[in-house]
């Protein structure tokens, strides 16, 4: 068992293509860290550098107390689960799981013990003699995990392991992976582009973009306090609504002034946004931060009005996609409210939950503690 630390790690491909830029990250022993980001953001490359499948161009990677930059993958005491599982098609499930142990010259009874144990945990006992071809996607995934477990490594690496599964299976496997982590308490690094997976699995998540870490933190923290416009847009479904406008001061009050829209900034945020007065900013509001304006709404309250373009019924909630001038935004409302297409809807934003971003630096101005 060991933690993993990346220090100022770069990956530069031939032709000076920067895939990973100055990444520093510390994964605690036993922690489940999820690397998340859109495709091409460098998350897989980072993981593969940890695994030793990619050379590290600059910086150091430490596993436990050992700098592993020049250690071959097999000696890094890691196990990896691949997106396509990479199960050897000509070997049975049992052989697939035992392969790594055989290569490491484990004793026969020890191999049998470990493989059987893993098979029991992963409920693969009935399929040990089968070839991967004869298994379902979920079973294959479990075999791939089994292959990692039997080795009892210090660090588990997952490279988008669930992306080849159907939605239902994905949910199922998510639970299993969580369960597994709880049981074996090994350090795990998990790469995904699916922010739901990231939110549900990670002790912490690390959002990456263009080879750079945007934000690292616990899922709720990242959700509640996205450090940048990018994180704000990326984390959360449906995504946060972003309105562009200018911050103005009017009668001692700070007001967000956009096209068709103007809203007062919450007082507690005044200090944080002071610097951006009369500058372009973005207002970020999650769909859940809106409520329907009704007859009880007091005069002078902030109201956004928009025409319903599409509404999606999700069960308890209904998502209404509204258009107001050039703004498009989504609000999440109670599902028993009837919403008709093209109808003008008036909604009140909860400005206490608003995020203000500097439009130039895209940084969140309203992060707590700043």
């Amino acid at each position, binding site marked *: 068992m060991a933690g993993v630390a990346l220090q100022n790690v770069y990956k530069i491909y031939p032709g000076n293509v920067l895939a990973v830029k100055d990444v520093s990250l510390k994964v605690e022993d036993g922690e489940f860290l999820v690397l998340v980001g859109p495709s091409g953001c460098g998350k897989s490359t980072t993981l593969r550098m940890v*695994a*030793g*499948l990619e050379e590290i161009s600059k910086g150091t990677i430490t596993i436990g107390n050992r700098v592993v930059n020049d250690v*071959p*993958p*097999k000696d890094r005491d*890691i*196990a*990896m689960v*691949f*997106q*396509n*599982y*990479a*199960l*050897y*098609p*000509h*070997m049975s499930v049992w052989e697939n799981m035992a*392969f*790594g142990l*055989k*290569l*490491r*010259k484990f004793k026969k009874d020890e191999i049998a013990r470990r493989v059987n144990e893993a098979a029991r945990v992963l409920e693969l006992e009935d399929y040990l003699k089968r070839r*991967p*071809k004869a298994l379902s996607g979920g079973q294959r995934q479990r075999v791939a995990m089994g*292959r990692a477990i039997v080795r009892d490594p210090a660090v588990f690496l997952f490279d988008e392991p669930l992306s080849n599964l159907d939605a239902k299976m994905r949910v199922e496997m998510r639970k299993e992976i969580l369960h597994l982590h709880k049981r074996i308490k090994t350090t795990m690094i998990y790469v995904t582009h699916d922010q739901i997976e990231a939110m549900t699995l990670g002790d912490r998540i690390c959002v990456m973009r263009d080879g750079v870490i945007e934000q690292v933190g616990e899922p709720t923290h990242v959700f509640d306090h996205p450090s940048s416009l990018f994180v704000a847009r990326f984390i959360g479904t449906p995504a946060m609504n972003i309105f562009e406008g200018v911050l103005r001061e009017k009668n001692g009050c700070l007001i967000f002034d956009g096209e068709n829209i103007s809203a007062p900034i919450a007082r507690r945020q005044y200090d944080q946004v002071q610097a951006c007065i009369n500058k372009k900013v973005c207002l970020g509001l999650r769909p859940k931060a809106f409520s329907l304006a009704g007859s009880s709404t007091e005069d002078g309250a902030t109201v956004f009005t928009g025409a319903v373009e599409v509404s999606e019924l999700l069960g308890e909630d209904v998502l209404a996609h509204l258009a107001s001038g050039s703004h498009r935004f989504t609000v999440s409302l109670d599902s028993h409210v009837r919403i008709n297409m093209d109808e003008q809807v008036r909604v009140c934003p909860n400005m206490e939950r608003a995020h203000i971003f500097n439009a130039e630096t895209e940084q969140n101005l309203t992060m707590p503690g700043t």
Partner: protein
Amino acid sequence: MITQNNTLYRFRRNLILVIGLCLISLFLLPDASQASGYVEDRNGKTIVHVEVVYLPDPTRVDTASRADVAAVKEFKTQFPAIFAARYRDKYKAHPEIYGIHNWDNIEIELHPFTSLNVEGVEVDLMAIAGGTAPDVIYVNFRKSDTYIQNRFLYPLDKPEDGYLSDMTEDEQAFRINEKIWPVIQRKGPDGETHVWAIPYGGALGKVLLFRKDLFDEKGIAHPTIDWTWNDMMEAARKITDPERGTYGFMCGGGKHESFNWITFLWSAGGDVMLYNEKEDNWRCTFDTPEAAQALDFYIRLNYEKWIDNDGKVRRGYTSRNSGNAWTKWARGEIGMMMDYIDEKLFSTINPEVTGMVPVPLGPSGIRGGELNSRMLGLFAEIKEPAVRDAAWEYIRFYDCEDAVAIKTRIMVEGGLGRFVNPRLLRRFGYPEIERLSPRGWSETFDIAIATGQPEPYGRNSNVAYDQMTLPIQAAAQLALDDQLPTNPDERLAVLHGLLKRYCAKANERMMGLVPPRQRALRHICASLVLLGIISVFTLVFRRIGSAFTPNIPDSPKGWQWRRYGWAYMLLVPAVGSILLWRYIPLIRGSGMAFFDYRIIGKSTWVGLDNFGDLLFDNEWWKAVWNSLRYSFLIMFMTFLPPIILAILLQEVPRGKILYRTIFYLPAVIAGLVTILLWKQFYEPSERGALNALVLRIPMIGFLLIGAAMMVLCVLFARRLWIHERQWVGWGFVAMGVLLFSAFGGLTLPTLFPSGEELGDSFVHLFSRLLSRTGEPFQWLSDADTAMLSCVLPMVWAGMGPGCLIYLAALKGIPEDYYEAADIDGANVLDKILFVVFPMLKALITINFVGVFIGSWYGATGSILAMTGGGANTEVAGLHIWYKAFTYLKFGPATAAAWMLGFMLIGFTVHQLRILSRVEYKAQGTEAG
């Protein structure tokens, strides 16, 4: 179940149909023989078309060819007159025989006979068998008997034709040397004596040619008329310098090597075969003490061990690659050679450089030059009498006095008069030119003719040639293995023993008599084997049937014309062409196996005799064994290296395309060119590329290479054992040992020379390890290396294409697997064994079967060109080919071909079964 029964029923019905067809076809023997000439009416004229072998080529501009062309042209002009004088009235009187044509206005058109050309092999036999024989065919002494016995030749002395009888005594004497009469006038197949062919270009005597420049350079006196064998050996020794590529003498190897030996046999006083008038048969007699003497001389000349100035071991004083003989001769790298002397030769050699003497005298003072002559005959199957008559007139005119006069004139006018046979110069009035001809040539020529003996022409003389080659090859192998005694008497005794053994065998073979009890036994064996074959066949068809019948329970019955009509229509061209070009010839030809098949005349039904004889034919089994050896080597060497190469190429970081091109390039070189190229590499001196390489590697190098390979194999084996693949692992160990012993074997003669005490060898072991081999390898004439040498060019040429296929497949293996293996802790060997190999398994299996079956058929051509079957490389296909086309034993040859086919069927079935299982999948998915 019902449908299954139905399929089975249908399958049985088809099987019966096939067997029935086969049986019927047995009685439909192909009727191949026909001639090419015909009579054509064109614009009121009658044109007789005649196809002629060796028709002089008007596009060639050298004087000798122009002389021939002029003679032929003259013939064409004169033909109408000749026709009018000799044939017109007869033709007009008998339209029922000669047809109704305008016999007053007649012309002849001559067509050259063209066919593929293989050196040293009788291609005209293939033409005759294939039905494309010319009307005028070329006959030499050796094959004359085959031609006569097989009725290929039309008798020239039938009174009703008046061919030969129309020639005057003088004309006959001018043309036919009296020594040649017994060759052309012989008993035919029906026991009557006829004249079968007539010579042209006069008698050819064998003489010894020598390079004056080489002799002068070494300070050796030029050969004289009274030169003996010893003088010749002495001169050859002095001239030979393998390092420079010069050799004393030229001797070709191959199946007809005995051809070179005969001169020595005669000069020693021996003979090849004798005619027994009473029994009308020929017996081989090359087992006399004189023959042993000749063989001893021949073997010493070719294989005597000697040490050159650098201490390298050399063997013999001859260049043994007949392929580049003339190039080497022209470059002045060969001191002496024997050749027939005639006007052609006169005109192509430079008397300043090339000298000529009669063949040297043997130990008892006999001179046994060979006498030969080119001959022309009429093909027996000419159907049109007019064509036959015209063809005869061509033969007659081609070398008549008028024609020779024209040729002589052109030669003289072309400035080559002094090279013309002095006899002709005298005759046609150029005495002043006769004085110019090189000194001694005329004398040499006369001696050559006077002392010459006709080349063997008796019954089965072709067989005799082959059989006579066997003791020569056996003796050569003994010499190469240093197993011939050094004491001359003992050596003679050994050689005599060899000759006796092979002579007896040759006689047994030529008589071809099998005692009745033996015959009965062969019958029984043949029946049993055939029965086995038929049951195997049945089984095979069932297997194939079941493998390819999809197991769909509710498949609709019948052909479903409505639904699949178009599909069947689309199939017709493919099925039709395969039937027409493959199966019909196959089935029709297969019948030959049950006949004593003759191209012309009646074939007799012999039942299972051909199969029976084959089962007891040692040479056949030897050929099969050779095929197995070849096949094994091919498998081992053309099958594995591309995979290994592909894996290596996959790992190359840069310049993949460059490497791929380099490896692929040999494949674009045509097969025969590859072989000829390699023949140069194999030159048995350091001038050959391969020897040059090998001679630079010290002994320890070979041992290290061998050891490295063995270590690699053991490493593989160890990885395999870890994964409980015990047997495969041991296979790798065996392979390693084999490789090590192969490389180590090369060093044995140097490290432990034969005849040396083992202790002494160990004393020298250390210094010898660092030394290089003293002896260039005789790659193609040593039976130890010959087969391997035949395989190597195939490996070289096949590497690229094979590699590309595997490379493509390797690209299809997702990176993931390698990475997973990396993380699992696999090293390179593990990845090859447990990732790459299993992924390529389907491809490898298909390739394996393909290579195996291909090796049985592909061997024939390459080995024919490489060694001609010498040095124990005659593979089954080549054996069959020789059987059919040099011995005209089509029956036994077909039987052998069937046998070969049956042996391979097992593999074909295996292949089909694999093919029926393989799933073709797109790249990137798991291989099936």
